[in-house]
């Protein structure tokens, strides 16, 4: 293993990555880079190509085209070294049923060639010490996920890849996982996280890549993403009856009818709300419901794709 670490090398550099399965393109020309200590999210619904992309970074799948560099290393030339220096949590994590949490960790310390004491260290990091001697088959979903993260921490990875680390977890378990990830981020680990929860991307990551049908549609910090749109606010007005006159005002950038109401897009809520109330009063509109909020990632995604971020998931459930 080389001990020379070039300071300005990127944790991950992916250029024009394409992955095809037969005629189907699962990942379509994705480029992104992650600096050391930076956390990025791949945000997208099921089937967007997140797992396929991440698994190419992890060396599990081979890209059809494109170039991947991890910590300045490539899979073709330095596979073992990459494996020693990255950590990963796969989308699906199952363990040997009748093997304890600690034994599972200890086994992996031998793969990573780190002292067995690292197993105890990782247990503490993910707050699983109390389950140390339980069989993995007796763990809850959240505990299992934490064990998967613990396995990824044994080698103190410089780049950590987390594929939907909180999918299927209850809110409490999710928060626990978030806290662990936050800690890791603080300690300077570069993180690539995939998710279809906007909150997760927003809370944990510096930069977000919105992915859909194999492509990156938009990327940037939360601020940049929102600023990429002309409007930052949305008002949904639900009403009864017919409109005689439409609402026209310079604050309204766009409006869109939907069954039982209208959506207004505006720069700022404080600019649109007063004239809107006025207009409602003047036209004697029977309000059923009025929803106003600042633009969020879900809205942004829907605007970009016409789909909801986690609609497939709802179907699944």
């Amino acid at each position, binding site marked *: 293993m080389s001990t020379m670490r070039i300071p300005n090398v990127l944790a991950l550099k992916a250029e024009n990555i394409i992955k095809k399965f037969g005629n189907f393109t699962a990942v379509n020309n994705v480029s992104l880079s992650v600096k050391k200590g930076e956390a990025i999210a791949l945000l997208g619904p099921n089937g967007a190509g997140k797992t396929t992309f991440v698994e190419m970074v992890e060396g599990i799948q081979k890209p059809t085209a494109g170039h991947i560099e991890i910590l300045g290393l490539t899979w073709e030339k330095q596979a073992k070294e990459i494996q020693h220096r990255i950590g990963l949590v796969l989308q699906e994590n199952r363990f040997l049923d*009748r093997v304890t949490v600690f034994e599972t960790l200890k086994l992996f310390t031998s793969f990573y*060639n780190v002292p067995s004491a690292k197993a105890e260290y990782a247990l503490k990091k993910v707050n699983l010490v109390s389950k140390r001697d339980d069989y993995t088959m007796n763990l809850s979903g959240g505990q299992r996920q934490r064990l998967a993260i613990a396995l990824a921490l044994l080698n103190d990875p410089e780049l950590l890849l987390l594929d939907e680390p909180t999918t299927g977890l209850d809110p409490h378990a999710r928060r626990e996982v978030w806290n662990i990830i936050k800690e890791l981020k603080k300690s300077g680990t570069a993180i690539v996280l995939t998710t279809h929860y906007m909150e997760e991307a927003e809370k944990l990551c510096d930069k977000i890549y919105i992915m859909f049908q194999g492509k990156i549609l938009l990327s940037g910090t939360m601020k940049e993403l929102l600023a990429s749109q002309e409007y930052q606010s949305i008002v949904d007005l639900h009403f009864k009856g017919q409109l005689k006159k439409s609402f026209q005002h310079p604050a309204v950038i766009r409006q869109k009818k939907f069954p039982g109401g209208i959506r207004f897009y505006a720069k700022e809520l404080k600019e649109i709300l007063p004239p809107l109330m006025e207009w409602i009063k003047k036209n004697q509109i029977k309000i059923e419901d009025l929803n106003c909020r600042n633009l969020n990632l879900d809205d942004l995604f829907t605007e970009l794709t016409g789909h909801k971020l986690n609609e497939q998931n709802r179907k699944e459930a």
Partner: protein
Amino acid sequence: MQILREIYQLVTIQIKQFYRQPGVLFWAFIFPLAMAWILGVAFTTESKTHYKIAWIVPESIRKPTRLKQFEKKLASSSVQVVWIPESQKEKAWKLYRKQKVVLVMQWQNQKWHFYYDTRLQEAKLLHLEIERKWTHFLTGTKESPPSSVPIQGTRYIDFLLPGLIAMGIMNSLMWGMSWTLIELRMKKLLRRMSASPMSKPGFMLSFYISRMMITAVETLILFVFGKWYFNLTLTGSWLGFFLIFLAGNFAFAGIGVLVASRTDNSRIGNGLINAVTFPMTVASGIFFSYERFPEMAQKFVAILPLTLLSDATRLLFNEGGTLSAILMPATALILYGIIFGAVGLKIYKWH
């Protein structure tokens, strides 16, 4: 050495996983024992056979002391007598027809008359035996009983036990190793492991080692039981036995790797393992000799890995097989392991 540590960890985990499974004690250790015991006892008719015969005697004498003494003598060699007075003669034929007695003897004019179906070998032998005993009884001479030389290899258990040892090795590798490999892929744990810097040769080697430890225990149990209960032991080379044990394990490890190389579906895995083990269990002469098969089939059966293993084991147990006699089948088994294993590893799906 990292690889040694990895192998040690993997072996430890596999052994733990093995003995922590419920029912493992039964299937791995008790079941083969029970099979050996039940089949061994049922088909190894070593115990003395008891015969019943009928005596028709004139009413007038009524169990004379002389005949009574002879009856005692017969009883000591497991022949039991039913006394029937002449007036109830019919009863004797009735017993004979119902096969309650093997033959009927009538005491007439101070002489024995024998009645039985002369086509029956068993009755004929018994007749001669009783005649002989009667002569000795009359003359008071001592019988010189033939002392039988027990020759190992003639009883069914002698045939069965080495076969069971061979079958145990096959099943242990195929169900223990091959199945565990498929399960690892099914659970995506294999994918997680192979995404780590784990050494793949070390991984495979650990399975061979851990499984061999388990089959060694299984074999030892059958071995000790055979010695203790049936006084059955190796008459041939111990080194040869060790060699064929290693080679047998190796062959089935290779086959196991091939079987487990692609599938992540438990039903397909099950089917594949059955497709390998079942025909061999039936054809390879574990429970009955394959000598009765057509000659062409015999030639084919003889080179199946399980046949090679069980025939060699039998040779060592019953026919004093030497190390050099074992070299051929051992080499063949190792070749099996290398060929199947190499193909298996070549197409092995790690992700």
